[in-house]
């Protein structure tokens, strides 16, 4: 399928660029997404480069290196921070280049000898402090946000795919198909979503890997969220179908598929685009809420919700936890909202009207 953007749409995109707040939010968010793709190079307890006895190692994306590879006595994964300290002490030619934040999100690293929440410390490179079991908050936040972002993008894609197909079909075909699906959707959307997620997720065996569990969570959430999109698409398709240009296309002899993909869908772009940011926001909020309640991603997966929970439990004694988690959530959701606002404005045919 190829959507040929008509001049109208191009104009709208130009308009979007002109709305600075939304445009820069979009740029920042995209930058975050791109950076998070290469997060292992920035926040990780594996070194970027190790030069050991004349040989270079790049452990970030490779198999693990047991300590014995670098002259330690142990057979488990090398502690590269220790390695760096050792090399510095020995003063030879060996060196280690560590990422900016040399901690993994699951690692308990304490400076006080006790696993507890420690305040931010630049010296220790715990830039946002540690959580209640001495894990680096920045690392957990970063990877938690990454999961939430990609989760919500996946959610968006799936919900849109189902919502648009069903919605358009309802609007375009009309008749019994429309009636039937309206009833199905009415029933389906009355099932309490949160409870269903909780119930389904509580019976999924833990033997599944964490990524499988995330995929299942995604599937369950999509299953109960695709309905809202259909109604918007249905009305929009109905509207477009009645327009003269559709009739004209039909008279010329265009097939249904051609009409849908070449005429109707491009004209409903405004609706689709407008709802995108809100769908993302709702996905991030939902997965955070589920984690907060303890029904989301299995421990020790880093997540915003789990951090928020820890934060609210230690509001007075470790305010930095809730501040980081809450701050991140606010930033991400604000960015997405700004983008949404700008998109809505730029796709609004009534450019100079004001909502009252």
């Amino acid at each position: 399928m190829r959507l040929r953007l008509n001049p109208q749409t191009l104009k709208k995109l130009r308009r979007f660029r002109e709305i600075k707040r939304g445009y820069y939010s979009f740029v920042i968010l995209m930058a975050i997404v791109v950076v998070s793709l290469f997060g292992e190079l920035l926040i990780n307890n594996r070194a970027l480069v190790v030069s050991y006895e004349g040989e270079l190692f790049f452990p970030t994306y490779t198999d693990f290196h047991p300590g014995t590879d670098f002259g330690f006595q142990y057979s488990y994964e090398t502690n590269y921070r220790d390695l760096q300290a050792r090399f510095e002490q020995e003063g030879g030619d060996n060196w280690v280049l560590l990422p900016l934040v040399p901690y993994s999100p699951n690692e308990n690293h304490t400076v006080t000898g006790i696993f507890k929440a420690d305040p931010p410390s630049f010296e220790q490179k715990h830039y946002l402090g540690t959580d209640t079991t001495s894990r680096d908050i920045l690392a957990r936040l970063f990877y938690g946000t990454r999961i939430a972002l990609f989760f919500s993008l996946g959610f968006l894609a799936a919900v849109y795919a189902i919502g648009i197909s069903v919605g358009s079909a309802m609007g375009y075909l009309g008749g019994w198909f429309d009636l039937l699906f309206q009833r199905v959707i009415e029933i389906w959307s009355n099932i309490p979503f949160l409870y269903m997620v909780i119930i389904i997720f509580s019976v999924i065996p833990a033997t599944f890997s964490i990524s499988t569990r995330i995929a299942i969570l995604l599937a369950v959430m999509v299953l109960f969220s695709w309905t809202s999109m259909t109604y918007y698409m249905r009305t929009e398709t109905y509207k477009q179908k009645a327009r003269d240009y559709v009739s004209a296309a039909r008279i010329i002899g265009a097939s249904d598929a051609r009409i849908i993909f070449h005429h109707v869908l491009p004209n409903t772009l405004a609706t689709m685009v407008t709802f995108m940011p809100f769908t993302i926001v709702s996905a991030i909020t939902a997965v955070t809420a589920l984690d907060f309640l303890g029904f989301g991603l299995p421990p020790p997966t880093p997540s915003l919700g789990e951090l928020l929970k820890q934060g609210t439990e230690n509001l007075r004694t470790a305010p930095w936890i809730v501040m980081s988690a809450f701050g991140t959530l606010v930033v991400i959701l604000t960015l997405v909202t700004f983008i949404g606002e700008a998109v809505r404005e730029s796709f609004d045919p009534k450019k100079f009207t004001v909502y009252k």
Partner: protein
Amino acid sequence: MTDLNLESIHMTKFSGFKLMVLALGATLLSACGGESEPESAAVAPTTGPSGSEQAQAYYAANPDFFSFKTPADIPTDLVWEDGADLPDIGSPEAKTGGIQYEAMQDYPRTLRHVGPDSNGSFRNWILDNVAVMLAHRHPDEFDYYPGLATSWAVSPATKTVYIKLDPDARWSDGEPVTADDYFFLFFFNRSEHIVAPWYNNWYGTQYTNISKYDDYTISMTMPEAKPDMLTHALEHTPVPEHFYADFGPDFVDRYQWSFVPTTGAYYIKDEDIAKGRSVTLTRVENWWADDKKFWRNRYNAEQVYISVIRDTAKMFEAFKVGDLDMFGLSLAEYWYEKLPDTDPDVQNGYIHKSVFYNQRPRPNYGLWINTDRPLLNNLDVRLGINYATNWDLVIEKYFRGEYQRMNTAFDGFGEFSNAAVRARPFDIDKAQEHFAAAGFTQRGPDGILTNAEGQRLSFTVTSGYESLAPVLTILKEEAAKAGLDFRIEVLDGTAAFKKVQEKQHEIQFTAFGVFLEMYPRFWESYHSDNAYDDAFLEDGSVNPARQIKVQTNNLESFADYEFDQLVNQYTVASDKDEMVQLAHQMIQMHHDHASFVPGFVQSFYRIGHWRWVKFPENFNHKHSDSAGELFVHWFDPAVKEETLAARRSGQAFEPQINVYDQYKEEL
């Protein structure tokens, strides 16, 4: 007492039923329950024979078990004991009155004492800490002091305990407590209507006879003259015969929300059950035991108001503003971070902090390995898991060195515990040796060991303790060093309990509540009867067709023919030395089997309480489990007003941080 989960252990007081230490999680769904459902009204009145008539018929049908005798039948050579020399428990300084404010995490699901859902932590308020039994163990001396009994005598030769009942004893509805209520206890607990198989089994097999000599004299006979026969005879709360007039097959529904009359000091009025929100206990007016030596000056508050606060953090905040009187500070996080000694409320003496060291059997926190599962049935894998589990690090860094390593699942039973057996330390080399012996020699790309078939050395660790999830994440990180992967599954408390009862777990992080008794139990958790149906053939070899048995406490699916013989010997043994020797042997065997990774024990409990909560001068009982369980504290309304006023005006009192360590023991 508002306790954190480490201490919220509930169990039936009376010997036997070991329960999972539950941190009963509140499910969201139950939160939406309406305020009052007219369930009891929906149950139609029964037309069949009354509970009493059914009981009479049952006695007549079982004449060997239920005997009606005359006082002349009581042997004359008995040595009667009454525990009168033991020290008082309550303090003469105690003042009566006031309201005790408490919180619970979950609303009780029933007010029944037995049957489905009756083992919630709310039992403590209506049964375990409140109801008076025939006699109770003295919290310092271990000997029995009288409750409903006035004196008792043991006759080892006839395996019988004779008991004289206190004629003063009354149910909370004013009816006298008589020998009939003890007969009814046996009828009741042997009835199938109560849907409590464990009780059916216990009361059906652990006693051979109960006799009534007159309204206030009874005796109970047991199949074996165990060294702790008294426990089996005395730790009973009778069942009120007059209350169960409508006893029948619909017992579970009919009595779901009926408060059972109690022998204790607190009862619940119907109007004080605000479903989903709170329960209020009210003191029985002119309680029969008010002037008894061991019961006076106890249960001092006029009312106990228990509201639902689902979140521990919120509970703590409620305590901090004075809405709750006491709060369990056993977790280091609370003791050091949330309510540190430097906290203004502590420094100004408004809130007092106390640590009490105690001596008693401890809940056996640890990893219970289901040996019925593939790979876990391999001894080397289990040994490896033992060596790869770094409890020492958890204790040192997460629990701040305050807990101690548990060495066996049977610690704290004095000479019955086997001090020679020590838990295996964290040792990566030894762990890898054992894993290698089991075929796991290659480390995969993530450092986890794999065997020749490419199987990963990975197991699911399930737990119902949400607040202890950090413990598991630490263990996971450490185990990875030895090439072992723990997949962590933290479930709601009820769901976790269900899973383990269905034996669906691989490894479970949990604990059983153990209570104050003389020697550990082996049958429940380690006899093959509770692991498989027909575990062994006649000759002692493994039955190839055996099926796993669900709904038992044998979480390790532990089945060993030789061990079974020892458990059987232990069950019938009446000689203490023989039992000690058998216990040691079994503990050693269980250790060698490596199906349990002993975790940690907590040898103290800690509380914070507001200044207006007063405890007796000498308060610190050797065998106590929590500060509130004996109800010796009292409330001084004048001090409460004074404290709150002082807090507003900034006036300070002497800070009080007390450590009671005379019962501290080196483990």
